[in-house]
């Protein structure tokens, strides 16, 4: 069976909260803002440790982004936090002008991204945020895969100077990355070595890709699994090194196919090494209410779908 196991399942947003707790004690320049969702963002420990460095904005996300930009001018490292839908799409122009174009050191840290937000339905399930954010010049886009990696990413982005979109989620998922693993922005992590198909996954789909590789192995197919936690800047070297061996690929993400990770990889490979590619993602549709696992199954964001797409990619070689 898999070389990856886990003892517990945790939500990635709690990894963010743990990262912020660490930063509350270790980096006096880090400040946090939240638009009336402290509990959802797991910010209680940060606020308890340094209440003077927390800014409650109320349900006013546009203002939150502007204030974050201002705090960064004053030398602070603001984390502007809310749900991914309200922290990106709702305030796109504020991020574009006051953060990205202005080159401000603002971290937009958002939970409840994607379908796994669940029962609240499509109004809250943003599936376009990676695309929106990666289109902004200079914006770093990160979607870690589990609790440990989200914690590490939170700490890493505080040490990076420049605008960052950090995306995480609500459901509990296996904690399988090492607690002490260094998070290097823009450096993909090879999880499983393989030779016949490359699976490039981000966020919650990384674990599903590991499961998919196990299923493929039972069929005698050796899939390579690479965790692309940073969608931008994309680790093009890691992608190229992998597909040079495997000659076909699948991308997997909890996001629209349009504008997501797979789209970034395809754009890169089209100009460097065109190869058969299949996409696991939401295909030009909104989500809906339901239990996270049921939604992921219905929209084909699971190990079984990755296996089908991997076989298809192999067949197109």
């Amino acid at each position: 069976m898999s070389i990856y196991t886990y003892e517990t399942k945790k939500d990635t947003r709690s990894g963010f909260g743990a990262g912020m707790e660490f930063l509350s004690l270790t980096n006096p320049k880090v400040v946090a803002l939240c638009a009336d969702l402290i509990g959802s963002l797991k910010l209680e420990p940060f606020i308890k440790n340094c209440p003077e460095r927390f800014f409650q904005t109320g349900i006013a996300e546009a203002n939150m982004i502007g204030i974050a930009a201002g705090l960064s001018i004053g030398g602070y490292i603001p984390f502007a936090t809310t749900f991914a839908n309200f922290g990106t799409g709702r305030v796109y122009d504020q991020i574009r002008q006051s953060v990205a174009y202005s080159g401000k050191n603002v971290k937009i840290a958002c939970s409840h991204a994607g379908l796994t937000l669940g029962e609240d339905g499509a109004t809250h399930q943003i599936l376009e945020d990676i695309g929106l954010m990666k289109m902004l010049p200079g914006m770093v886009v990160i979607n870690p895969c589990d609790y440990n990696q989200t914690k590490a990413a939170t700490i890493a982005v505080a040490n990076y100077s420049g605008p960052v979109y950090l995306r995480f989620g609500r459901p509990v998922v296996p904690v399988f990355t090492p607690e002490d693993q260094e998070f290097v922005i823009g450096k993909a992590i090879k999880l499983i070595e393989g030779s016949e198909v490359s699976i490039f996954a981000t966020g919650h789909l990384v674990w599903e890709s590991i499961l998919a590789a196990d299923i493929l192995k039972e069929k005698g197919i050796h899939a390579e699994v690479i965790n692309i936690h940073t969608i931008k800047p994309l680790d093009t070297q890691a992608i190229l090194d992998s597909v040079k061996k495997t000659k076909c690929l699948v991308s997997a993400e909890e996001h629209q196919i349009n504008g997501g990770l797979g789209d970034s990889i395809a754009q890169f490979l089209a100009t460097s090494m065109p190869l058969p590619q299949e996409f696991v993602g939401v295909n030009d549709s909104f989500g809906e209410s339901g239990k996270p696992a049921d939604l992921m199954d219905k929209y084909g964001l699971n190990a079984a779908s990755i296996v089908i797409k991997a076989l298809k990619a192999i067949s197109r070689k």
Partner: protein
Amino acid sequence: MQTQELISIASQVRRDILRMVHGCQSGHPGGSLGCTDLLVSLYFDAMNLKLDVTNNQVVFNMSGLNEDVFFLSNGHISPVLYSVLARRGYFPINELSTFRKINSRLQGHPTPHEHLEGIRIASGSLGQGLSVAIGVAQAKKLNLDSSVVYCLMGDGEQNEGQVWEAAMYAPHHKVDNLIAFIDVNGQQIDGPTEKIMNNRDLQLKYEAFGWKVLHVDGHDMACLQSCLAKAKQMLGNDIPVMILMKTEMGAGVDFMMGSHKWHGVAPNDQQLEEALSQLSETLGDY
């Protein structure tokens, strides 16, 4: 600085504005002329600026730590800000001739993207500047820095919802190191503000949100000076200050006043000549 000196600088700034807008045949002269007296009184009198000069160049400090900072939220009146910054020594006056031209640091709307000294945030898409100013004011408090943050908005800009998010936030969080202005010229692109989207009573609105509100004639330099001095004295009492500044779009050029027509239109050669004849060249044109 003496009132008369400020009036004299304002005349030159108005000339700069007209020549910049004429030079590229684009830009926004109306609001720029209307806010000239305020920006001159701020940068040459009211504001405490740290202008460290090395090799005849101002060393611009992005953080604005321990100095007063100004944010222009209605970024389309960039000509007045550029002229005042250049005349104050932030960058070479000759650079004003590059306004809105290719490869210029003087973009149509201000931006720090081109590293122009004096600009700390991009503005142009309206409604965002007050939020940014509040953030800087709160950073100053964390830094135990007692200097002041200023922010200018337009009256048409009050249509934007984000302005009212910020208006609600500042008194709630006791941002009392902030002085904001609204340029009440009564005009926006499609016509008079009361016809396009009536602001009604801005004093009542801001007072209801928890601000102290002052009024000033934006073209009476002595009044501007005393109003700014009064506003500064009001700071530090948990309450931000809003100054409703009555202005005339196109102020200083008779045929540009009293209408929204000159909001975003450049004068032709003849109009420029006529306009310049109404303004003395006090500091030398660029």
